[in-house]
C-alpha cells in the first residue's frame, strides 16, 4: 500500500496517492527560491522607490503592467468555467472547476500584489475607492478586481475547508456544507464583475486619445478594445486551464480528468478565439482606415519600426490566432492531446502578445512628429517580481493539489497514465 514516505500523510485526503514528502519539497524548493528572490526585489522597490526599475517617464508602464494584464487574462478561466458550469449548466466541466478557482485566485492575488509594488504610493490605494472617478477605466478596473478577488477568496474557502484535517473542525465542516450551496450566486456575480474588469482592462488603452495606436471607437463609453479583451480573455481562459491540467497530469503521472473535458475546453476556446480573430480583423480595418486618419496618423506611424513592425500584427492574427482557432475546433485535433495542447499554447501566446502590444508597444511608438521610437528593457527587480508571481502560482497550486481534493476523482480510481 503506502510505500512512499509521507510525513504529512494526515493532511492528505484519505486514499489519495501523492509523491513522497521529500520529493514534494524538492519540487517546491526552486519555486520558493524564486518567490523569495521576487519578494526581495519587490522589497527593494518599496524601500528605495521605483527607480529600481527601468521604467521611466516615457515607459510609465512596463513589464509589470504587461504581467498584470496577462495573468488576469489567463485567470479568466476561473470565472468563465464557473459561468459555464453554474449558469450554462455544463456539468461535465465540473471536475476542473476547483482547479480553475485556484488558478484564478493566484492570478488575481498575484496581480494585485504586483500592482501594490508598481504604484508609487501603495498606501494610497484606498483613494481610488474614496474619490472614484467614474470616467476612468482604471477606477472601474480597481473596483471590479477588488470585488472579484473577494469572490475568488470566498470560492476558495469551501475548497480549503475540504482538507482532511480542517474537516475535523465541526464548524468548518458545517460552514463548508452550507456555503458551497451558495457558490452559484458567487459564480454569477463573478461573471458579471469579470465581464466588466476584463473589458475595462482593454478599455484602459482604447480610451487614450493621445495614443492613436491604442485609441479605438466603440459602443457608448466603451471602446472596441473593451469587447475584444473580454473575448480574448474567455478564449484563453479554457486554454490555459487545459495547459495547467495537462501539466499537473504529467507531473503527477495520473489521469486527473476525463479526456472529454480537454476536448470540450479546447472546442470552447477555439470557437471564442475564432470570433475574436474575426472581430479583431474588423476592428483593425476600421481603426486603420477611419479612426487614425482622422487624427493624422497612418499605418506607417505604427508598423515601420523594427523589430516590432507589422510582424506582430501578423503573428497575433494568424499563427497565434487563426491557426490555433481552427486547430481547436476541428475534430482531427480533438483526439490528439499533443496537438490540442500546442494549440492552447499558441492561443496563450496570442493573448499575451496582444497584451504586450497594447501596453508596451503603445508607449514605444512616437506621437509628436519629432518623437523617436523608444526601447525599454526591464530591470532584474522587475523580472524577479514577475517571477515571484509565477512561483507563487505554482506553489499555491501545488499545495492545493497535494492537500485538497482539487479534482473530484472517484475514490481509489487514480490510474497511472501511459503518456504519449
Amino acid at each position, binding site marked *: 500500500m503506502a510505500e512512499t514516505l509521507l510525513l504529512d500523510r494526515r493532511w492528505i485526503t484519505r486514499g489519495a496517492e501523492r509523491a513522497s514528502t521529500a520529493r514534494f519539497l524538492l519540487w517546491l524548493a526552486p519555486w520558493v527560491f524564486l518567490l523569495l528572490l521576487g519578494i526581495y526585489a519587490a522589497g527593494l522597490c518599496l524601500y528605495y*522607490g*521605483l*527607480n529600481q526599475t527601468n521604467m*521611466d*517617464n*516615457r*515607459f*510609465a*508602464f512596463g513589464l509589470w503592467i504587461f504581467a498584470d494584464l496577462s495573468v488576469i487574462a489567463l485567470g479568466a478561466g476561473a470565472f468563465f468555467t464557473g459561468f459555464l458550469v453554474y449558469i450554462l449548466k455544463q456539468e461535465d466541466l465540473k471536475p476542473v472547476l476547483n482547479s480553475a478557482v485556484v488558478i484564478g485566485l493566484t492570478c488575481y492575488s498575484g496581480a494585485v500584489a504586483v500592482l501594490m509594488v*508598481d*504604484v*508609487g*504610493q501603495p498606501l*494610497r*490605494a484606498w*483613494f*481610488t475607492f*474614496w*474619490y*472614484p*472617478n467614474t*470616467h*476612468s*477605466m*482604471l*477606477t472601474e478596473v*480597481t473596483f471590479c478586481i477588488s470585488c472579484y478577488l473577494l469572490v475568488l477568496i470566498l470560492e476558495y474557502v469551501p475548497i480549503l475547508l475540504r482538507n482532511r484535517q480542517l474537516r475535523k473542525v465541526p464548524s468548518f465542516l458545517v460552514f463548508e456544507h452550507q456555503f458551497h450551496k451558495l457558490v452559484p450566486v458567487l459564480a454569477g456575480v463573478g461573471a458579471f464583475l469579470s465581464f466588466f474588469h476584463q473589458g475595462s482592462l482593454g478599455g*484602459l488603452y482604447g*480610451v*487614450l*486619445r*493621445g*495614443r*492613436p495606436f491604442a485609441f479605438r471607437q466603440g459602443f457608448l463609453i466603451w471602446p472596441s478594445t473593451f469587447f475584444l479583451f473580454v473575448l480574448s480573455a474567455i478564449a484563453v481562459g479554457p486554454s490555459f486551464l487545459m495547459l495547467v491540467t495537462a501539466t499537473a497530469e504529467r507531473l503527477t503521472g495520473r489521469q486527473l480528468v476525463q479526456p472529454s473535458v480537454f476536448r470540450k475546453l479546447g472546442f470552447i476556446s477555439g470557437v471564442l478565439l475564432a470570433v475574436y480573430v474575426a472581430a479583431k480583423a474588423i476592428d483593425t480595418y476600421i481603426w486603420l482606415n477611419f479612426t487614425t486618419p*482622422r*487624427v*493624422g*496618423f*497612418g499605418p*506607417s*506611424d505604427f508598423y515601420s519600426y523594427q523589430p516590432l513592425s507589422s510582424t506582430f500584427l501578423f503573428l497575433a492574427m494568424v499563427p497565434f490566432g487563426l491557426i490555433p482557432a481552427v486547430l481547436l475546433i476541428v475534430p482531427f485535433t480533438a483526439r490528439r492531446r499533443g496537438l490540442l495542447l500546442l494549440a492552447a499554447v499558441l492561443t496563450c501566446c496570442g493573448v499575451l502578445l496582444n497584451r504586450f502590444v497594447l501596453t508596451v508597444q*503603445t*508607449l514605444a511608438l*512616437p*506621437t*509628436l*512628429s*519629432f*518623437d*523617436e521610437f523608444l526601447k525599454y528593457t526591464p530591470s532584474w527587480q522587475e523580472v524577479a517580481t514577475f517571477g515571484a508571481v509565477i512561483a507563487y502560482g505554482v506553489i499555491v497550486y501545488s499545495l492545493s493539489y497535494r492537500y485538497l481534493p482539487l479534482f473530484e476523482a472517484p475514490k481509489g480510481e487514480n490510474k497511472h497514465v501511459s503518456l504519449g
Partner: protein
Amino acid sequence: MNARYGMVIDLDRCTGCGACMIACAAENNVPPAQPRATYRTGVTPMLVRKATNGQEGALRREVFVPITCMQCEEETPCVSVCPQQAVEVDKATGIVMQIPQRCLGCRYCMTACPYHARYFNWWDPQWPAGMENSLNPGVAVRMRGVVEKCNLCHARLHSAMAKAAAEGKREIDPADYVPACVEACPTGAILFGNLADEKDPVYAAAHSADSFRLLARIGTEPKIHYKSTQAWIRALAERSTEHSGEAQHG
C-alpha cells in the same frame, strides 16, 4: 470672468539655451538628479526638445521646441483617466491642476498624455546639505511616487491674487503673474497671458497665421501655442510620414 491662461512660444526666437528649464526647476523645488538618473527619469515640467527637418549637410535645419503641459481644454486626457480625481481643470484659470497628495502614482495619466508632459518622481527628493536653503517657500516639495507637471507656476498666481486682495482689487495685475520660464527666457520667446482676454497680446499671437499647436488634430484643444515663420517648423505640428522624426533632448 474666467481666465484661460496660455502661451505662445516663438520658435524662431528659441535658442535652446535651457534657461527656462533651469528657472522652472528652481521655482518648483526640483531636486538634483540622482546618480542613476537618465534623460527620461528627470522631473522637467519645462523640457526643451530638438527637432530637425530631416536633411543633412547644408540643408539641415534644427529647431528647439520647449515642451510643457499643454493645458488641454477639451476632454483633457489626464483628467478623465485619473482613478482618484487627482487632476482637474480649474475653471477660473483654465489650468490643469494636480493634487500630489492624492496621487497614487499609477502613472496612467502619463500614458494618456500625447505630449509626454507629465513626470514621475522616481526618487525621494534629496538636496545636498545646505542647498535646502535655496528652496522656494511658495511651492510644496513632492514626495517620491507621485506624478507632477507644469501648473503654470500656480504659486505665482497665488502671490498675485494675494497682492491684489491686499490692495483691495478683484482682478490681478497681469504683470504680477509671470511664470518662471517666461521670466527667465533671454530672448523673450515665451509670451504668456490670458487667452480669454481679446486685448491680451497672447490672444493676437495665438490667432496669427504663423501660430500652430502640436497634435491639434487629436482634438484636446491645448492652450500652449507655437509660432514660426518657417513652414517646415509649422509642419512639425502634425504627424507626417515623410518626416524622419529625429529628435534629441535638451
